[in-house]
């Protein structure tokens, strides 16, 4: 512990330096200016304070987070369940693996007009956009986690008279846990993309609305502040999940 601390401190210093360097370059580029539509860091930061203080940014997040959280919850329950089913049953695998391979490869933004055509422009359509982007990676990770169980552990379980049920509960699921969790984390990353695309393409609401509105009236610092805020929030959320993952499933006790 004592030897670890200075390294931690040093890395914190480096991180701060790298942030300072990045924001400094941004400030320079904004003042130069690269483009009239590219505000400097200080202007963007002030705009961020402004739209946070007047309540428009927090309100937008309340709207945006709804389809995101509903979509991720759906993926977390149905997606993981489905992936586990695919991993355990050859029949389910045979019937649905091609679909998920296609979904994983398809450019999802292209089917958003189709979602709008069928489900309109409300919350349902936006939840679906999140689900369509996040589900494939959640399902595929759960499926692979199950399928990659160490065959030797399964033989061990059978040789000690484990039933199929015990095999699933005591060997396969704990073994797949880390990969399933990682799938959920990647799913959240895709969900952020999905929800922003939906809010830009379907109807402007929440963050999508803020970006579209400020861009249309040429409030570029506000527009950039909104974009930066969603990037930061997505990055922090995913990093947080990664930390949690390391804590629950330290690499040395992982099955896979």
């Amino acid at each position, binding site marked *: 512990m004592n030897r670890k601390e200075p390294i931690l401190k040093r890395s914190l210093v480096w991180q701060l330096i790298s942030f300072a360097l990045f924001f400094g370059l941004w400030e320079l580029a904004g003042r130069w200016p690269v483009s009239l539509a590219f505000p400097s860091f200080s202007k963007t930061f002030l705009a961020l304070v402004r739209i946070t203080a007047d309540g428009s940014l927090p309100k937008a997040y309340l709207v945006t987070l709804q389809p995101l959280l509903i979509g991720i919850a759906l993926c977390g329950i149905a997606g993981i369940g489905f992936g586990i089913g695919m991993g355990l049953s050859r029949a389910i695998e045979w019937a649905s693996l091609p679909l998920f391979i296609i979904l994983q490869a398809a450019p999802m933004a292209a089917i958003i007009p189709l979602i709008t055509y069928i489900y309109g422009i409300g919350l349902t359509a936006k939840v679906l956009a999140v689900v369509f982007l996040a589900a494939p990676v959640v399902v595929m990770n759960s499926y692979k986690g199950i399928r990659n169980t*160490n065959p*030797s*552990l399964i*033989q*061990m*379980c*059978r*040789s*000690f*008279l*484990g*039933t199929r049920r*015990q095999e699933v509960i*005591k*060997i396969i699921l*704990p073994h797949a846990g880390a990969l399933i969790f990682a799938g959920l984390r990647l799913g959240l990353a895709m969900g952020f993309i999905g929800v922003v695309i939906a809010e830009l393409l379907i109807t402007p609401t929440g963050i999508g609305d803020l970006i579209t509105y400020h861009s249309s009236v040429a409030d570029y610092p506000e527009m950039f502040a909104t974009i930066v805020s969603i990037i930061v929030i997505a990055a922090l959320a995913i990093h947080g999940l990664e930390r949690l993952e390391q804590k629950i499933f330290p690499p*040395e*006790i*992982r*099955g896979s």
Partner: protein
Amino acid sequence: MPADAIVQVRGVGKSYDGGVEALREVNLELPTGRLSTLLGPSGCGKTTLLKIIAGLIAPTGGEVWVKGKKVEGPGPERAFVFQDFALLPWANVLRNVAFGLELRGLAWEERAKIARDYIGRVGLKGFEASYPHQLSGGMRQRVGLARALAVDADILLMDEPFSSVDEQTRRKFQEDLLALLQVERKTVIFVTHSIEEAAYLSDQIVLLSPRPGTVSRIIRPDIERGGTSPDEIRRDKNYLDVVDEIWQILKRYVD
């Protein structure tokens, strides 16, 4: 000897899809309370034969009888020790050793008591709360052995248990195994590719020929074990003769 054979292998054959024949017409009797070794070059199907006896692989021909009953799958009278240890990485030593009992539905207190006992007997006292990644290869295999002993089976099936353990640890482990078996009175079927290991440990050595595997010779070393130290066994004239005899036979299969 047939009268007290606990395991009988009758005409067992195993072919895989695609026509690879791993075993052909294997007939074998394994005596109760003795240590028998399946020995042969790699690819002779010795692990396949062991797993067929364990009920983990179904033979394509013939049958295996254990204690007068035909083998249809794994059974409570057989316990397996795996070459790659097959320990749960997320469970500590105590839970790993108790795992066979856990699968049988024993209450936690009861199985922990039995597991602690066997952890002590294999020399791992004090490591109950350690995880497999914190142990050396030799210690991990001791966990695997304790797990197999804990379910109190009559027959221990050991699949090259010392192959991923360094030479010094291996020798110590062999000595400990013999000492342990003096107390436990188990029938052991032991797969190895080491001639010295087979000669040192076995009451009966089954030599298998490669591709397709079949019994080429059975040797019963006449080595005095009672009272002699392990090092004396390794200098014993009979021991050295057995090693040489096996080598003369196996030499033909090596090219």
